[in-house]
């Protein structure tokens, strides 16, 4: 299949280095301490942050820093095929962990010892790049909640198809089987906090140029 036309346009009409349309809104969940909707093209996620608050499960309490928790869930209608998956399948658990680790690294947890911050991410629509969208939404929600952070985390994915590096893959491009990478960076500090490369795909070095 051709993912990049001879004119250099992608399936959805973008240039290889072009992002999808970004849209964000904060304060969407009334009862949450911080919340945000983040859209990247058709991918749409909601993040809500509760905390810092008292640690619910005493045995998990940390005395020198805040406890950061994260739960990722997908709405039944978020994918093309209707799915009924039980909560807490392997993929969700893995993404929850990735988001938690990424956000934990940028929150100034040592300022809030013996407290707990919960990040809930709900995918409303999935069209590739849900990981990145979740991280971006979580960042906005944390900022909305006024939680002290080192820097914003921004995340985006990229892939390599038809000998062309492509930025911000959609679902069709993501499932094409080419190599892809998800990167999260702290832009002001100019540091990478997240770098994920699925191991089943081969990557060539040129790819990292993106």
């Amino acid at each position, binding site marked *: 299949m051709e993912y990049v036309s001879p004119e250099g346009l992608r399936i959805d009409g973008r240039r290889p280095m072009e992002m999808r349309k970004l849209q964000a809104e904060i304060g969407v969940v009334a*009862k*949450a301490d911080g919340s945000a909707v983040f859209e990247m093209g058709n991918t749409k996620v909601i993040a809500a942050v509760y905390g810092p608050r008292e640690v619910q499960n005493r045995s998990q309490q940390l005395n020198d820093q805040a406890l950061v928790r994260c739960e990722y*869930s997908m709405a*039944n*209608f978020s994918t093309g095929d209707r799915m009924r998956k039980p909560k807490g399948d392997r993929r969700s658990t893995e993404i929850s962990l990735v988001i938690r680790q990424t956000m934990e690294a940028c929150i100034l947890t040592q300022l809030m010892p013996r407290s707990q911050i919960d990040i809930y991410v*709900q995918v*409303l*629509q999935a069209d590739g790049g849900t990981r990145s969208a979740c991280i971006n939404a979580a960042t906005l929600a944390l900022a909305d909640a006024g939680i002290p952070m080192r820097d914003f985390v921004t995340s985006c994915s990229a892939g390599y198809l038809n000998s062309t590096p492509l930025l911000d893959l959609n679902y069709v491009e993501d499932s094409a089987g080419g190599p892809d990478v998800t990167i999260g960076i702290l832009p002001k500090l100019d540091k990478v906090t997240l770098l994920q490369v699925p191991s089943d795909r081969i990557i060539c070095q040129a790819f990292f140029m993106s």
Partner: protein
Amino acid sequence: MNGLSLGEKLFVQGGIAQDLRSDGRKRLTYRPIYVETGVIPQANGSARVRMGGTDVIASVKAEIGRPSPLQPNKGKVSIYVDCSPTAAPVFEGRGAEELSTELSVALQRCLLGGKSGAGAGIDLSSLIVVEGKVCWDLYIDGLVVSSDGNLLDALGAAIKAALSNTGIPRVHVAAEASGEDQPELDISDEEFLQFDTSEVPVIVTLTKVGRHYIVDATLDEESEMSSALSVSINRKGLICGLTKRGGAGLDPSVVLDMISVAKHVSEQLTDRLDSEISAAEAVEEE
């Protein structure tokens, strides 16, 4: 659930007794309702409904299926509600299961009619493609994104809006297959059938606090309820389903009175919802 102080409790109760609730509403006034349709492009129909701090999304997906042998001339509809942990931390993990099932069951009771299919808000026989062999299965999914009370009414409204937004592809049956074979189908990408949603009932929940009942209770008000009655009423004023919540007993005459109040309220609500839905549809088409 919602920890209120004694003072706050008295404030909520007192306000209701004096017909001036803490957000300035009267007992039988709804919060403003915002409807947005077509929010999930991948679904056949979808809508988002907001009432104050309550925010829900409903989506309708249609899939080709086989009718049940008991009712060969009817399609199937299933309703499932999920509560996102974004709405409240207690919904984390399996925490939402109980509430989700309760809401799903209540919605099924209110929208799907009796066992024989009588009184269903959705005309199941319109979902049949080939009798006994092919029908549409409608999957209605509700998602609670943010919760500030009165979830059932909001979900009912969202489902009504999503259904009126739903287009089901026209199916051409290639050739009448004989015997046991499934007929070949050609599902159109362009032609869609619109649903008739005038029969879809609205749900009105009356929450009893003290001696009075209120509509569209917020989370704070719900925490003070002794019991609540959710009545689903269609345009003809017929009751299509009823669910009681809360353990406290009610005198049968009070039940009947609540039903008649709900009926009265439903007339206004139906009109308001219909105009909101058509307004939202107009926005979407622009």
